[in-house]
């Protein structure tokens, strides 16, 4: 009898524990803010976003390739679902940002949307010679990055592809000349999802870094065999090689990858560069699919050393798909955001926010992943993300897009995916063993995340996407932040896989002030890529870097935008040029775009 009573009590204890699970399960992340009207959003969050692509005259819908080798056809949506990209450029130097969008079906057109200064855009890609970039036999476009490689004042463009990368010279904003063949060691074929302009040796000439995803010797339209897939889901090293191409200053580039010590053959999906190790030379951060991230520390422009392991950013393998830098604490140091996969009950990788630890000789001794403690970890099947002060309150926010394959909402590929995931490399690496996806979805129809940086003392983010008007559920890939109408706010442009290009016009509480810096190098590269601006105001300091490409297949506007909050007292802006010069701008005026030329 006593035993029965004891067992009944144990049963009550077990029931209590299970009840605790029910109570706790919804407390992991605070619920996202619910949809409210725009005035309420403005009041509560200081901004709201409105999708205006139609009003802008933009009706672009991305198309994926359909014609990859028949050995990949049964998993085509998985393989081909990563080729939407958008980049921002003022290609004609009229002071208004334009947009370049890649398309990825064979024969489809890319688009260069010229800003008409009135909220509308006109596609001038064909006129400029940048439309017809998906010709049969040349591969398909996956992204584009802009940089003035010959320092003539006009932004040139590298189109990276699963195929033959193309370099176009900007002819003073009047047109573009294809210079691929005369550019030296530009690779003949590279299956890349990421490339950036970076002056790695700080010699004043922009160099190129192109990161292969698939191995470069694969023509995905004519495969020798089906054994082309990653050898492991989390430890794969059979991806594409990388290319570091040094600008020789005569319009040609030389391949210095090997000499520079960059040996990675991981499946890189995103790359970005910034001075993370304190020696003024830009370091390279690679977010790798099927594996760990890599941090190539730039040793004085001479060579690179991979320090991902010692710095902890390369400890735990996940599915890196984006690299973004942001000084979210206003401490004058960059955090690194890397997106991964989260599907409740199936796979919980969570995104990483790497926060630098203490420094030794300027170099962080280690990074700590704080994504979950500040609540930017769980973002679905995450792709592109960008930091920017969306509400001009003086703290960087984070915009993230997600969703992989939105097909039949009632069918799910996750079981098939999990089946193949843990198998031996011989099985995984052979495409014929991957279950056919047919019309199944895979983490599709996901709600986007707009995380605003709210807590001033203990930085935490809250997701206000629905509340501020971001309600789309397309399969987002690429995000770019840009002040499209020179209003002192960051608008958002999103490129979706097999979906429309979205333009979210931002309306910000007018009390919140801002300042922008438009830099032009002289001793440094003219695009000023790699230059840092540290703005000091109201006891804070925020650092931003002029980027030659960041996020996923994207490039933000070249100008640096700082939100300041209401009634700011701006002390100074410190500009650290790649050449090594430091410039101080005392008390820069707010609500102003400051055009700063590097002092001679």
């Amino acid at each position, binding site marked *: 009898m006593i035993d029965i009573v*004891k*067992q009944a*009590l*144990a*049963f009550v*204890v*077990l029931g209590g*524990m*299970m009840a*605790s*699970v029910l109570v*706790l*399960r919804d407390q*992991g992340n605070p619920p996202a803010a619910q949809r409210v009207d725009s005035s309420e959003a403005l009041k509560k969050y200081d901004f709201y976003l409105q999708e205006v692509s139609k009003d802008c005259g933009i009706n672009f819908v991305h198309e994926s390739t359909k014609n990859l080798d028949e050995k990949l056809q049964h998993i085509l949506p*998985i393989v081909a679902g990563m080729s939407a990209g958008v980049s921002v450029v003022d290609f004609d130097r009229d002071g208004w940002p334009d947009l370049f969008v890649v398309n990825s079906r064979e024969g489809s057109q890319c688009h260069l949307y010229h800003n008409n200064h009135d909220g509308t855009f006109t596609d001038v890609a064909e006129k400029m010679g940048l439309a017809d970039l998906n010709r049969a036999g040349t591969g398909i476009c996956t992204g584009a990055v802009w940089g003035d490689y010959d320092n003539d004042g006009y932004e040139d463009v590298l189109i990276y592809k699963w195929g033959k990368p193309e370099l176009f010279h900007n002819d003073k904003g009047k047109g573009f000349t294809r210079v691929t063949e005369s550019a030296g060691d530009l690779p003949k074929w590279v299956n890349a999802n990421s490339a950036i302009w970076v002056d790695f040796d700080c010699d004043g000439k922009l160099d190129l870094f192109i990161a292969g995803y698939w191995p470069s010797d694969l023509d995905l339209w004519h495969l020798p065999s089906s054994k082309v897939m990653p050898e*492991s*889901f*989390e*430890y*794969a090293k059979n991806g594409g090689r990388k290319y570091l191409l040094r600008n020789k200053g005569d319009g040609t580039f030389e391949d210095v990858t090997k000499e520079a010590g960059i040996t990675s053959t991981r*499946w890189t999906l995103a790359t970005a560069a910034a001075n993370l190790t304190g020696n003024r030379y830009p370091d390279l951060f690679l977010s790798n*699919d*099927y594996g760990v991230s890599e941090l190539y520390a730039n040793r004085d422009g001479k060579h690179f050393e991979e320090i991902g392991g010692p710095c902890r950013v390369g*400890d*735990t*393998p996940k*599915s890196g798909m984006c690299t973004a830098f942001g000084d979210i604490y206003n401490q004058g140091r960059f955090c690194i955001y890397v997106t991964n*996969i989260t*599907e*409740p*009950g*199936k*796979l*919980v990788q*969570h995104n990483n926010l790497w926060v630098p630890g203490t420094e030794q000789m300027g170099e962080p001794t280690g990074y*700590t*992943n704080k*994504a*979950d403690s500040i609540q930017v970890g769980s973002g679905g099947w995450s792709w592109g993300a960008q930091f920017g002060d969306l509400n001009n309150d003086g703290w960087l926010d984070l915009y993230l897009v997600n969703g992989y394959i939105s097909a039949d909402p009632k069918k799910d590929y*996750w*079981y*098939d*995916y*999990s*089946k*193949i*995931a*843990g*198998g*031996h490399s*011989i*099985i*995984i690496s*052979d495409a*014929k*063993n*991957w*279950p*056919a996806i047919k019309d199944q979805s895979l983490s599709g129809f996901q709600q986007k995340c707009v995380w605003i940086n709210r807590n001033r003392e*203990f930085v935490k983010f809250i997701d206000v996407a629905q509340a501020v008007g971001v309600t789309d559920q397309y399969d987002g890939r690429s995000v770019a932040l840009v002040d499209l109408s020179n209003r002192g706010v960051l608008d958002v442009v999103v490129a979706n896989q097999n979906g429309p290009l979205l333009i979210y016009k931002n309306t910000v509480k007018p009390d919140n002030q801002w300042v922008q810096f438009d830099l032009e190098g002289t001793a440094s590269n003219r695009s000023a890529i790699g230059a840092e601006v540290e703005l000091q105001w109201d006891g804070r300091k925020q650092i931003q870097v002029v980027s030659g490409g960041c996020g996923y297949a994207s490039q933000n506007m070249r100008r640096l935008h700082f939100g300041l909050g209401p009634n700011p007292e701006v002390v100074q802006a410190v500009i650290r040029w790649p050449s090594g010069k430091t410039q101080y701008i005392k008390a820069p005026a707010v609500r102003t775009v400051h055009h700063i030329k590097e002092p001679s």
Partner: protein
Amino acid sequence: MSSSTQVASEPAVAAPPAVTHPGRPAWQRLLTFDNRYLAPILITLILFFANWFYGNLDNPDAPWMAWLTGGRITTFSPTFAAMLAAMATELVLSRAFRGKWPHLASAYISGISAGILVRGPLLWPFVLCAMISIASKYALRIGPRHLWNPTNFGMTVMLFLAGDAMATLSVQTGNSYWAPIVIWIAGALILGRLRRLHIPLAFAAAYFPLAYVRTLFTGDTYLAELAPLLSPMYQLYMCFMITDPPTTTRTVRSRCLVAVLVAVAETILRLNGDVHAPYHALFIVGPAANLVEIGVDACRKQAKLAMAVA
């Protein structure tokens, strides 16, 4: 865009009974290896080396830990927390319901299993999975036998109730041969001493033809259906979860039959797209087999009694 959701598996063998040698002198008894420590030691070694080579364990940042330690420690180990929770629960429940201090080897294994298998950024799923696993041994039992493998029960309950807050193991120990081989060596050492090596062998023997049967329904390649069996995590499942001595049947023949039935149930669940098929298969078949054996034992006992009376 990669992923790897590999379900299943857990090093959750309960500690075997101690081997005692009353006839030996004290110094010899001190040096005699206690079977109960074998499984914890080997599983700890597997975890240690897996993390060393592959970084399986991800220690999340914890502001509360930084606050508690004045910034000296900024992260927490959920695996360690699960182990502590399991052993603490075992201590409390054993004292409360059995009136004695327990040997903690079994709780250690359940805790380390929960710590490996639960994935997610939150602490409480690790802790509660470990606690539920242990509590199930005390609550869900018939006479001296508990019905479910503790960690199998804990994981199944957690995935059912808190699937939005956690997932099961996702980070793999590579996709090469060596990890399964190492696990099999460790498993063979333990299961050989326990005389249970036939269980994983029976399961594997059943899996091969069942994988072929699945291809007839799915149209996928045989290797695709075989893939889960070759993963390191499945070796842990086969060697340590379905072999748990307190929750397996008594005879070699019946254990082999149960292993085959688990594989059959897993195939049925897989054909229905169940990502957590291995957990669910054992969750269903394991206690059912135990109940049948308990029932048969009771009938035999009654028959013997009746015969004795007659």
